[in-house]
């Protein structure tokens, strides 16, 4: 009974996604009806998916997104954890100011920085490269913040004990701190991966060849308001296709976060 309540709640929550999936299997005239019509009336209508695979190089785009999101998330975890390590286990001058700078970066709206960052990236000669697509995603104030929070609750005495054993600070970070904080690392990785996978404007701006396009661009390629387009069904089909990898990453790693193997991601 309890489980049924949980699952029904879940279905209500993902109704919008089910809706999108259903639409992606409907022909145009079925979408256009004014009558209530939730499920496709026939099974196996695949035209919308054909449009997606025929008119965009979606697999190539998805590969690009995968490289961009995967690599930048790993780099981000390393950079953020190092910074968080410094903030939570050391005492030094200027620490509070530096941390305030990290927190402050969270409220600098990324959209506003886009044009200026384009100039920087262009000066570095990174237009049309994977590195150019990724470099702005290497850093995230929020990730440093959440990791610091997590490390803070990690016993300082443990670090002192390991020092007595002759363990250097970096070794402590590498051998003890990181392995015992897998849940938070996974959380940061997932949120970073999903966030980067889902960005649209930046990769579109710094790349201008078809070979470098990302998955999100495929959706807009099909959803052009002016002039002709392929219809709502194709757009939803594209949305469903590019949803698959991010949901997959999610499902694979999600157990790590909430699997209860190790206690506490952002620990209470």
């Amino acid at each position, binding site marked *: 009974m309890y489980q049924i309540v949980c699952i029904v709640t879940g279905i209500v929550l993902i109704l919008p*996604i089910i809706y999108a999936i259903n639409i992606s299997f409907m022909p145009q005239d079925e979408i256009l009806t004014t009558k209530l019509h*939730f499920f496709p009336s026939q099974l196996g209508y695949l035209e919308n998916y054909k449009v997606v695979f025929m008119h965009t190089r979606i697999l190539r785009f998805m590969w690009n997104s995968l490289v961009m999101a995967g690599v930048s998330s790993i780099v981000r975890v390393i950079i953020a954890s190092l910074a968080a390590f410094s903030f939570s286990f050391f005492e030094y001058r200027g620490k509070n100011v530096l941390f305030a700078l990290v927190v402050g970066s969270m409220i600098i709206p990324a959209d506003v920085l886009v044009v200026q960052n384009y100039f920087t990236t262009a000066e570095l000669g990174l237009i049309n490269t994977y590195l150019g697509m990724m470099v702005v995603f290497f850093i995230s104030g929020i990730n440093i913040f959440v990791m610091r929070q997590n490390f803070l609750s990690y016993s300082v005495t443990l670090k002192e004990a390991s020092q007595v054993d002759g363990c250097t600070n970096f070794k402590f970070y590498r051998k003890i701190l990181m392995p015992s904080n897998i849940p938070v690392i996974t959380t940061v990785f997932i949120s970073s991966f999903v966030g980067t996978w889902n960005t649209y404007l930046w990769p579109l701006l710094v790349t201008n060849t078809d070979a470098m396009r990302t998955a999100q661009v495929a959706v807009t390629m099909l959803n052009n308001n002016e002039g002709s387009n392929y219809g709502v069904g194709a757009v939803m089909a594209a949305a469903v296709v590019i949803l698959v990898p991010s949901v997959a990453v999610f499902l694979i790693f999600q157990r790590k976060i909430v699997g209860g193997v190790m206690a506490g991601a952002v620990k209470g």
Partner: protein
Amino acid sequence: MKGKTFGKKLFQTVEPYLYLIPAFLLLIMFAYYPFAKNTVMSFFTVNKFREIREFAGITNYLKVLGDEKFIQSIGNTLVFVVTTVPVSIVVGFGLALLARKRTKSSSVYEAMYSMSMAISVSVVAMIFQLAFNPSMGIVNKIFGTNISWLTDPKTALGAIIFIQIWANVGYNFIFLLSGLRGMSEDVLESAKIDGATGIHLLGKIIIPMVSPTLLFLLMKDIAYAMTTSSFTLILTYPVFHNGGPNGTTETIMSYVYGKGIVGTNYNAAFAATTIGFILAAVMMALSLVLEKRKVNYD
């Protein structure tokens, strides 16, 4: 020998800074430098190529603050913050409490609850654009209404807030769930033995224990809501070419986008950005005060 200890000491002093180098290098390059440049330029008159023409003092700020549309956008943004932030945290928390107990089907509904996190803003926008569409959309069909949800000034902001809450819930849920699961069962059990139940247990034991998570989500959601523009830009800009209808969905950042990127009027955009940043900083400071008083790291 002496040199070695000196070296060691020096290393000890610089070591914590070394770990910060990559983070700060990138922060400076891609966040603070461009932001500082924007801020400096807000005191100048710049042309459409973002080239400085002359010193303008605070003229740009006076102009923006005199624009009733900008004032309206500040109001909308605050409404956005005080609705989306608490509601999406409370809903996320409720779901996390519901899912806390592990059952056979846990992984199924955990995935469902957190799914909204996996979908890009533009796809979320497209799905809801269709759902809210007055003639084709499922919403009117289900409720038998005939409302143009996204283009009627009475409902547009509400619809966008609803979408934002849906989009936030997954993220909040997953963080809160791991917070709850991380709670020590012993503490819970002993509290229960002491006769703590229901709301009391929640207020006195559970909430304090997940307070770091709550604080983090509060900070993140406020930061996000203060700087948000996505749904306005995707859903109402194509129809009204501003945060319409009648400016009801204009946020501070969509105003900036409209002036700067769309209109190439960077004078207004830069000044509005700085003001938006200051307002967001005040909100963040308020929630940090909360950290000092309420958050429990033990």
